[in-house]
């Protein structure tokens, strides 16, 4: 058991660190939930891509560096430690891309991935529906076979960044007689196609971070179907569990935030009433970093990422909220002023909801990891 990095990995990390130090914008970008901020983020992604840092774990032919999983984790650590911007195309890069790598055709990979790497096309995830939240298999939007493709109707909601995004991926019911997980199709849809209406929904911070997407008989060509029609659920599950996806949420983000919190606490004169919680936030971030290194080792040994990804999710979503609430308590009366900490706090509150709520994750851990009896889900 060791934590030492070999020469090659150290060189990779140093190169990333040097590039980020020289290139991360001095002024933070505007929120990507505003038109101006979204454009700034696209520019930043282009700059990352030009230096091959936008999708380090991808094969070179698609703009990556063939980086190992460990290198990816280290890159993420450097990325957040350097204070670099959030990734505007994270749904594409971390969720759709792994799906395309395992289920997409060569043609799809060649057509879609290079543009994604540069964020020329920013992707939205269109999974949730008004009547299908935690229970995605209850979805109602339909896809009907037609000449050369499918005609899509229905409504998706809570789609992050769909307001400004170019395209979306999601599940639709392709077999009208099917129920639940069966008879679904996984489609990529152009958000500018005829029949698509995107209605922005302001989030708690007032910005249009969410959107509803209405589909009114929208044509989707066959080339934009991932996997076989009817097999959408199986394809979607690789999106949810993919080891390079959000399920292995970068520990770099939390470590960087925990380090900032410890500094904030020292600068505020080490207020005793928050000491324990500051220490716990750092301990949690370090635990998550080491846990991830353990996962990386197991995956490199050929193991599959299973229900432990729910342990991940439960842990970091809780950690992120606690960390930000502690920061606000240290700030005292200034906590109510808009700034990095209060924005971070608002965002942290969504962690226990998106990507499967904490209740859903707990049920998965209890049933699939601990083997407790199945219950109503």
């Amino acid at each position: 058991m060791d934590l030492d990095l070999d020469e090659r990995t150290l060189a990779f990390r140093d190169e990333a660190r040097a590039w980020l130090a020289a290139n991360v914008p001095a002024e933070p970008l505007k929120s990507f939930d505003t038109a101006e901020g979204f454009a700034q983020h696209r520019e930043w992604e282009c700059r990352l891509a030009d230096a091959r840092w936008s999708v380090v774990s991808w094969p070179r032919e698609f703009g990556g560096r063939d980086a190992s999983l460990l290198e990816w984790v280290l890159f993420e650590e450097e990325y957040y430690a350097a204070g670099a911007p959030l990734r505007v195309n994270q749904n594409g890069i971390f969720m759709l891309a792994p799906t395309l790598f395992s289920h997409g055709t060569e043609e799809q990979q060649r057509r879609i991935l290079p543009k994604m790497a540069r964020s020329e096309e920013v992707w939205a995830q269109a999974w949730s529906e008004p009547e299908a939240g935690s229970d995605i298999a209850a979805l109602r939007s339909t896809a009907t076979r037609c000449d050369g493709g499918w005609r899509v109707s229905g409504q998706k909601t809570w789609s992050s960044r769909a307001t400004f995004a170019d395209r979306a991926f999601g599940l639709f019911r392709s077999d009208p007689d099917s129920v639940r997980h069966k008879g679904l199709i996984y489609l990529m849809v152009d958000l500018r196609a005829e029949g698509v209406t995107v209605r922005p929904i302001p989030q708690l911070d007032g910005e249009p971070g969410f959107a509803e997407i209405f589909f009114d008989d929208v044509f989707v060509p066959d080339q934009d179907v991932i996997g076989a029609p009817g097999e959408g659920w199986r394809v979607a599950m690789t999106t949810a569990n993919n080891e390079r996806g959000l399920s292995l949420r970068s520990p770099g983000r939390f470590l960087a935030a925990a380090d900032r919190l410890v500094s904030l606490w020292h600068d505020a004169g080490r207020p005793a009433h928050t000491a324990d919680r500051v220490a716990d936030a750092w301990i949690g971030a370090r635990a998550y970093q080491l846990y991830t290194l353990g996962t990386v080792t197991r995956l490199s040994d050929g193991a599959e990422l299973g229900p432990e990804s729910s342990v991940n999710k439960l842990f970091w979503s809780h950690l992120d909220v606690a960390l930000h609430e502690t920061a606000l308590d240290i700030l005292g009366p200034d906590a109510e002023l808009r700034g990095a900490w209060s924005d971070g706090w608002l965002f942290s509150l969504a962690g226990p909801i998106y990507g499967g709520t904490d209740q859903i994750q707990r049920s998965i851990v209890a049933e699939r990891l601990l083997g407790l009896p199945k219950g109503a889900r």
Partner: protein
Amino acid sequence: MRFALSGEQEQFSRSLHDLLSGVDTDSANRSWAAGDHGPGLKIWRRLAELGVTALAVPEKYDGFGATPVDLAVGFERLGYHCVPGPWTDTVAVLPSLLDDELLTSVASGETLASVAFAPHVPYALDSDVADARLAVEKGRLRAFTPGALLSSVDGSRRLFQPVAGDDLGTALDAEHAFELGCLATAAQLLGTGRWLLDTSVAYAAQRKQYGREIGGYQAVKHLLADVATGLALAEPLLFGAAVTLDRRDVSAAKVACGDAAHLAARTGLQVHGAIGYTAEHALGLRLTRVRALVGAWGTPRFHRERVLS
């Protein structure tokens, strides 16, 4: 970077587990608490045959000179099975305090040690059964004689007020010894927490109320899922600390293993209901052990301060 136990370490953990599953540690704890060390010492000797007592002893004194990771692996299983006796003092701490022939008999399992470590370990554990009694203060070693027997919340931890005697000179490496004491305690907490989780899951899967297993109820499931999460994330801190032995990492491990085990104990009791509140049930032994170890080898407050400094 390979952050996973080696095949030999996994194997060592399994042999410890197999051995300890076959002995009645619960009744050994009860005898120990009553001052009858016989059954506990029998387990001590069997573990010594497996090499546990020789782990941290240098090779020149017939030990294995094993790494802190090996120690953590061993202590995790000792915690799981709630083995009574001054294991931390003898096996984790003592070998870093001395360079002495005495270690040969520690390695073979003949000598048990009781170590007081000012200021964080003020009371000496099991001094009545230990033949080597050492008090560490500011890097110096003193012999001590056991004074009054104090009663611990965990009856099978017999604590004594040390009465200082002869000065024995400078400790070999008191700082290292202290970190290993903290690490071994954290490992036992993790192991004890795991036993509490496993036992509670098994109970929840068979105990029925309102016509179904209580483990099928979401309220119960979610409590246990939180315990599993806490333990899962405490483990890498323990082994990370064993690899680096960095003060901050060791303290982080001690806090996290203590918190996770404490949650496992509280949840375990809740899931078991009244049967868990009886002295007959093994749960109580673990619940009080956890509470005792949370404060031993540095309180959570002390360790959190080290994390922040």
